[in-house]
């Protein structure tokens, strides 16, 4: 199952190899041209009818994770975070290290040995370490190295009423949507681009936009969802099960009003539920894409994900399907020249 394969793969920012290979494998028979650029971005092209506007659809391949910084004398591993991780979700989690996916656990001091006041404070990264079960540094160095990337050990699970729990829904959900579009769409020309290192500063996006030079771009994302009861409606960035979230504005882009309105109109005309992403926090590849070279128009369409950037992010299959429907319909309008 595609999303399962993608979310369980390892692809921390700067180490997207495994995910990149899965994607290349999935799409190579469905595209007319494909290449991997100097930073590891995938640039795929599907031929189609001529269109005055060059369209690019992107999804970033990378996920947030950890990186090993030291193996100490007891064989315990020190680490740093890659991308924005709330340090409080790290403790008491199993992880997989390096290409060999060595199993480890992020342990913590037992409650019994802590003073009451200590419970109040979040544990600092410096106080945490990963235990892979060896006795000393030499044994540790046989299995892992400084610089190894670390992912959460979290499997893809379907639960409840068509919900999915997995790690890296941000942004394997975007990758999955794009792969499916590439496989299904015929005779509509567009660039399908899978970028690297979005989570550490939108690194891959600028260079890829420099190469492709799109007129229009649609950026696919898994985005924040925090729809708990009792929260004021304006503080809820997106809801689960209310459809794809259309971005208005974030830290890196003031989304083109005309394009955004066109997309919501398409959704309304085709009875596809949608919502606005109400928060202006966060950013995505659009930030770099729309300001590259002479500039271009972008829109970001996201699947809401609860518990984003944690090992237990949750999304709704219904939202996924509605997002896919919306994208297909947008592509049809693009083909007609109506975008």
């Amino acid at each position: 199952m595609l999303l399962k394969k993608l979310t369980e793969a390892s692809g921390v920012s700067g180490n997207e190899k495994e995910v990149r290979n899965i994607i290349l494998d999935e799409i190579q028979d469905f595209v007319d041209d494909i290449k991997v650029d100097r930073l590891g971005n995938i640039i795929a092209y599907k031929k189609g009818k001529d269109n005055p506007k060059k369209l690019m659809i992107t999804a970033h391949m990378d996920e947030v994770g950890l990186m090993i910084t030291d193996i100490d004398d007891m064989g315990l591993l020190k680490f740093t975070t890659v991308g924005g991780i709330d340090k409080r979700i790290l403790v008491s989690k199993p992880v997989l290290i390096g290409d060999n996916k060595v199993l480890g656990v992020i342990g913590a001091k037992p409650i019994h040995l802590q003073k009451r006041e200590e419970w109040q404070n979040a544990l600092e990264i410096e106080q945490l370490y990963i235990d892979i079960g060896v006795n000393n540094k030499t044994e540790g160095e046989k299995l892992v190295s400084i610089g190894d990337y670390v992912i959460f050990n979290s499997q893809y699970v379907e639960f409840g009423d068509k919900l999915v729990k997995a790690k890296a829904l941000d942004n394997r959900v975007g990758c999955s949507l794009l792969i499916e579009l590439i496989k299904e769409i015929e005779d509509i020309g567009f660039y399908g681009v899978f970028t690297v290192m979005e989570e550490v500063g939108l690194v891959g996006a600028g260079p890829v936009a420099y190469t492709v030079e799109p007129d229009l771009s649609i950026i696919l994302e898994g985005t924040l969802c925090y729809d708990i009861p009792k929260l004021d409606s304006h503080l809820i960035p997106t809801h689960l099960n209310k459809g794809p979230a259309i971005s208005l504005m974030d830290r890196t882009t003031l989304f083109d009003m005309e394009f955004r309105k066109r997309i919501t109109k398409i959704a309304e005309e085709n009875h596809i539920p949608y919502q606005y992403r109400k928060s202006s926090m966060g950013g995505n590849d659009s930030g770099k894409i729309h300001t590259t070279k002479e500039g271009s128009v972008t829109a970001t369409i996201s699947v809401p994900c609860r518990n984003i950037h944690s090992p237990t992010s949750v999304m709704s299959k219904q939202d996924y399907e509605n997002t896919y429907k919306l994208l297909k319909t947008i592509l049809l309008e693009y083909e007609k020249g109506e975008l």
Partner: protein
Amino acid sequence: MKFNSQLMEELVTTYGPSGNEDNIRIYIKEQIEGYVDKIEVDSLGNLIARKKGNGKKIMIAAHMDQIGLMITDIDKDGFLRFTNVGGISPYILMSQKVIFENGRVGVVYVEPIEDISKLKLSNMFIDIGVNNKEEAENLVNIGDICIYKPDYSENDNVIHTRYLDDRVGCYVAIEAIKGIKNPKNDLYFVFTVQEEVGLRGAKTSAFKVEPDIGIAIDVTGSGDTPKAKTFAVGLNKGTAIKIKDNSIITHPKLREHMVNIARNNDIPYQMEVLEYGGTDSGAIHLTKEGVPTGAISIPTRYVHSTIETASKKDILDSVKLLIKLLESDIQL
């Protein structure tokens, strides 16, 4: 040269927040149409007006966009919630009037809070005077942007108004466009978009224009109000020639040239070392292989407030300096 109050007032009162600059672009286009050789609008909405000449290709940037608020939610009673477009202080925003593109006026207030230091945009709201959500939805949409309601006043010394940043820069650029008859250099006047959210329009338009030299015209702060942080720039001491801000260290030879132009033409000037903030010059100078860039700044009190204040004489001196600079032979 006389101060053109009508132009200034019309500029600062025309709707044009970041991301929605259509109205101000149309207004500016009308003002400059008869005085330029070519006008283009690029994909982000920058207005690029060229006055052809030989000599160096100079890009002059003044940003058209204004700070404002974007509506993100409409509650069941018709109150609006928002996020900021550009730098908005909740303390300045508190109890102001705002206006939407369609003319609807709203007022800004805050939920009851005990401690005024806890004032932030997320506990504030806009009241547009409707009875419920449907009525509100007939007037505004999520994604609409409102700005501070226009309020312009002047006396013989200063102007007090919202949005001197950077409509005063647009004023200076427009007057220069009108004042230069036979350009000695190849002049590209770019009225940029989205400066307030990250110098975005300047980045893309500079890539397109590929100038030899860049000059930004924007406001700078002032250090001449009670207990102000040390800052050598003040009102009525002349136009300000920028040495640095957070986005650029201006090209020293270009800066020296600007100082000489000011001296040789008896234009009062002051030197500006700004410890915060950035301007379009920051984006321009890092374009491609680099562009020697400088900036002419209009000293302004209370920047990003609803009562920005500048001296008419300083504004006119800025126009004079820009015109003489653009007419000069710039050798670096």
